[in-house]
Structures are given as C-alpha cells and as structure tokens.
C-alpha cells in the first residue's frame, strides 16, 4: 500500500514535467498540424542552457527558466519563419522529415560543443526530501511540479485572455477565415512554433534538475509528448496537463510492475490502446 502511494506521488511529480513537455508539442500539432520531431532537441537546448548558466554563474535553474524560455522562443520563431514556413502546408511526410533533419542538426551541433559525456546539475537542495507519512518527496521534484502548474496556467491564461492568444485560437479553427479577418498568419504561426520551442526549453530546464544531460536526451521525450497528447486530447492546455499527469502515473506503475527496461513498450501499449479505443483522447474533441 505504501508502495502504491509512493508510486502515485512519483507519477504525479513526473507528470508535471511531462505536461510541460506535452504542452509545447500539443500546441504546434493542434494549431499548425505539424508533428515537431525537433521538440526533443529544443528540450535538450533548454537543459543545456540551464547547465551552462549554472556551471558558469551558479544561476539556479529555476531562475534560468525564463531565460531559457525566451531564448528558445526566439530560436523557434526564427526556425519557423525562415525554414519550416516553406513546407507548412505540404503533406505529412515533408514537415516530418524536415523537423527530423533539424533535430539531427541541432543535436549534432550540441554533440560538437558539449561532447557526448553525461553531465548533471547538482544544487544545494538536490538531495533533500520531505516526508508526508510513508511517502518521500524530493524538494526538487515538488518545486518542479509547482512551476509546471504555473506554466500551464499561464499558457491557458495567455490563450484565453490575451489578444494574441485569441487570434491564435481563431487561426486554429479556420486559417483562411482568420487571414481574411486581418490576422497576420505567418507571424502567428511563428509565434506558436516559438511558444512550442520555448515551452520545450522550459521543460528542459525542469528536466535538468532531475535527469542527467546528454545531447540525445531530448529524443525519447518526443514519444512521451506524443503519448500524452493522444491520452489527453490535442490542442488544449487541459489536455496536455491531464495527459501528462496520467502518463506520469502510468509510467510509475509500469516500471514498478513491469520493470524499468520496458518503459517504451509500456508507452507504446498505452498509445495503441488509446488510438484504437478513443483516438481523440480524454479531453479531446471529435474531429473528422
């Protein structure tokens, strides 16, 4: 029973990160209909930004998070505006391969700069925990969850309340109508992709606190993001949050009862079941 509670808590804590990972991916997919295979690379860039700032200036990762977000936002904006934009309306395979190629480029640049050895971030509070009953919670992970929730709430507020956010949602519903209504579609597409990259960067910072760093670290998270989006429903903040938390819990129980080596297999089974039984996910809307 205690094990169950611990797994559940671990799952929720991990789920917060997954939610942020999924959020950026979900926005780009839901609004631009692009599966951004470079998402993992952006996560990695965020993580390494936090590492560099930490090791050079001892800047706490939680403080470097907004910087990483901003940096990745502008990077993503540029990538979309000047590269991806040319194939935005192409059939599936083209943007898929393009973002894959970009991912290869970015990961290999990182490999060149930082080399392949594993790095990590150890802050003063890294090892400390709090205990509630029989359950142990690492401080880092708890704060990570809090920040993740702040980010998702912030994104939701942005999308519903701000003018840009509403324009983005209008564009997602009907791009041609939005364009006719005066929405600067190419700019907004770049904004959305930038947000996706920024959120990935933020996720990367959060990840850097609990996981080790390597140039290829981001790639597994693309599948994670995909599964969370499918689980929770595409294109909404709530969907990413629900999907992330649920997936975190599923993974925690999965590694407990099936073993850590088979994590991807667990993810795949979950993914396939959802796709076959309820493709739009828990909170998703039915589409044609």
């Amino acid at each position, binding site marked *: 029973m205690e094990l169950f509670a611990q797994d559940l808590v671990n799952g929720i804590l991990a789920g917060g990160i997954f939610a942020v990972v999924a959020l950026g991916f979900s926005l780009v997919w839901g609004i631009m209909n692009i599966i951004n295979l470079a998402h993992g690379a952006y996560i990695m860039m965020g993580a390494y930004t936090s590492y560099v700032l930490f090791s050079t200036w001892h800047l706490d990762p939680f403080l470097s998070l907004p910087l990483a977000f901003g940096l990745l936002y502008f990077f993503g904006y540029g990538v979309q505006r000047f*590269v991806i934009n040319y194939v935005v309306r192409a059939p599936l395979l083209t943007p898929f391969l393009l973002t894959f190629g970009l991912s290869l480029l970015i990961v290999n640049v990182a490999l060149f700069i930082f080399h392949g050895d594993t790095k990590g971030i150890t802050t003063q509070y890294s090892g400390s925990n709090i205990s509630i009953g029989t359950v142990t919670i690492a401080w880092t992970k708890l704060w990570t969850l809090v920040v993740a929730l702040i980010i998702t709430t912030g994104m939701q507020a942005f999308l519903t309340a701000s003018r840009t956010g509403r324009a983005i949602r209008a564009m997602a519903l009907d791009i041609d109508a939005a364009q006719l209504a005066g929405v600067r579609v190419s700019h907004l597409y770049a904004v959305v992709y930038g947000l996706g990259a920024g959120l990935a960067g933020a996720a990367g910072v959060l990840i850097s606190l609990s996981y080790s760093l390597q140039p290829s670290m981001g790639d597994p998270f693309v599948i994670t993001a995909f599964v969370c989006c499918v689980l929770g429903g595409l294109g909404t903040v709530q969907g990413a949050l629900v999907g992330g938390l649920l997936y975190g819990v599923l993974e925690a129980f999965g590694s407990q009862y099936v073993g850590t080596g088979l994590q991807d297999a667990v993810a795949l089974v979950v993914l396939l079941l959802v796709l076959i039984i309820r493709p739009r996910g828990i909170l998703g809307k039915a589409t044609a």
Partner: protein
Amino acid sequence: MGGLSGNATALRVTVAILILLAFVPLLHSGYDENLGRSVLMFATLSFGWNILGGYTGYVSFGNVVFFGIGTYTSAALWQHWHQQSIPLAIGCAVVVAVAFAIVLGIPILRLRGHYFAIATLGIALATEEIVANIDWLGAGSGQAVRPLEAFSSYYFAMWAVCAASMLVTYLITRSKLGYAFVAIRENEEAAAVLGVDATRYKVIAWAISAAMAAAAGAVFAGANGFIDPPTAFATDDNVFPIVMALLGGVGTVAGPLIGALILTAINETLWSHFPQIHTLFFGAVIVLVVLFLPRGLLWLMNTRGGWRGVVAAFGAYRL
C-alpha cells in the same frame, strides 16, 4: 499504361546500374564490397518503404522493425539450430516478418497520417526494448551470427534481394494491385466506394514492405557476424531509406535505388572527410532535400517544367 512505373528512361538506366553493381566483387576490394552491399541493403529497405509509403500513402516510421526481425531470425537460426544457409534465413525471415505485419497491420492500419507514423515509430522503439529483454535472443548483449567462409556470398545474396525487390515493385505497378494501392493513397474513401477493400490492400502493402526489409536484415546479419538490439533496430536503418526514397522519387520504381546510390555516395564522402560532423552534414542534407525536392528527382523528370518546376514548387507549400 506504365503510368505508375515512372519515367521509362530512368528505369532502364537504373536497371543498368543494378546490373553493373552485380560485378563489384570482381574488384576484390573489401571496402568496395562493403560499400556496394550497403547500397543494395539500403535500396532494398527503401523499396520496401516505398510500397507502403510511396504507393499506398501510409508513411511508416518503423520499417526498421522488420529489418530487425530479419536479423534476429537469421541469428536464431544459427544460434539454436546451427543453420547457415542464406536462402533458409531469408525464407524464414520473410515468413516471420509477414506474420508480424499481418497481425499488427489489422489494428494499426486503421490509423491515419500522423497517428500511423508515430504508432509505427513507437512499435520500432518498443520492439527494440522487448528484444533486449529476451534471453533466448541474446538480450542486451546480442548474438553472434557465424558468417560463411565465402564472404562474397552475402554480396550476391543482397544483390538478389535488392533485384527481387525492384522487380516486385515493377510488377506491382504493372498490375491491378498497384492501382489499388495508389487509389488508397489518392482518396481512400472514394476507393472504397469503387470496390477497393482498403484494409485488405493496406495489409498486403505492409506485408510486402515487411518481407523486403526482413530479407535485407537476414542477409545483413550473416554479413555482419553479430547483431544486438541497437544494431538490429538502428535509427539510421529507419530513416535513411525514407530519405533515399524521397530523394530518388517517392512512388516510382527506380527512385529508391537512385536515392540509395546518391545518399550513400554523399555519406561516404562526408564520413571520410569530416568524420566528426558527418551526421551534422547529413541532417543538413535532409533539410535541403526536403525543402527543395519534396517529391524527389524522378518526379522532376516525370512532370512538366523540370528545374523551373522545382523553383515554382518551392513556394507551393508555404503559407
């Protein structure tokens, strides 16, 4: 007719190149033989991908699964039954892969577009993990596959597999089956109304695709001498064939081989001159190919406009 086979001249040239490739072992150079075998292997994988992705329109990002199944079938035949025969390895690999494809295909092929692509990617990753946990298959440390003394046998075997794949592709494009595939690609709903049982034909396409990949894997395992999960399910073997089909011409008969030749040439050049950043350059190559040649070289020759068409097409998909 001949509408689905692609440009006839390109086809003849490619067949000629294929025949030339059969003579590579005569050069008595291990390096050239490895390189040639690599081209033939990737071309076969690309032919396989092209059947499902190019002709039927179902983009799979997990074809390496069947390649891996092929390698492990070959390995298991040696490890557990001490069989070295190449035809046997190919035959068993094909049977296992086709069975896998049919069983997986029926639920998975109901998915479309992005969902299908990622589901196949997930299958590839998951299978790698599962195999790494099966001791009978050597688990994480892999299994040895004893190579035959006549090493060039593997070259000819790979050549035969590649030639067979190209032939099968050609025959499909000249038959009713090819039109079922293409109809599904163009408009699956309309095809159903015209009497095409889409599920049946999608599974057939995937099975053919799987058979080709598995055959290539079976030969590769013997030539390599050793396989383990990362080797059998390598990302390169997954993505390169797709880029090769793209470069050469998606949905044409000659495209995969042309693409394999060009990309292997580029890869080798990069590897020998810039070993550290060759993957980086490869990423750049992918980006450039995708941006400027979204349907590949042979489509250029097929459609009107040639190079001007490329320039015009460049802006076609932008906002």
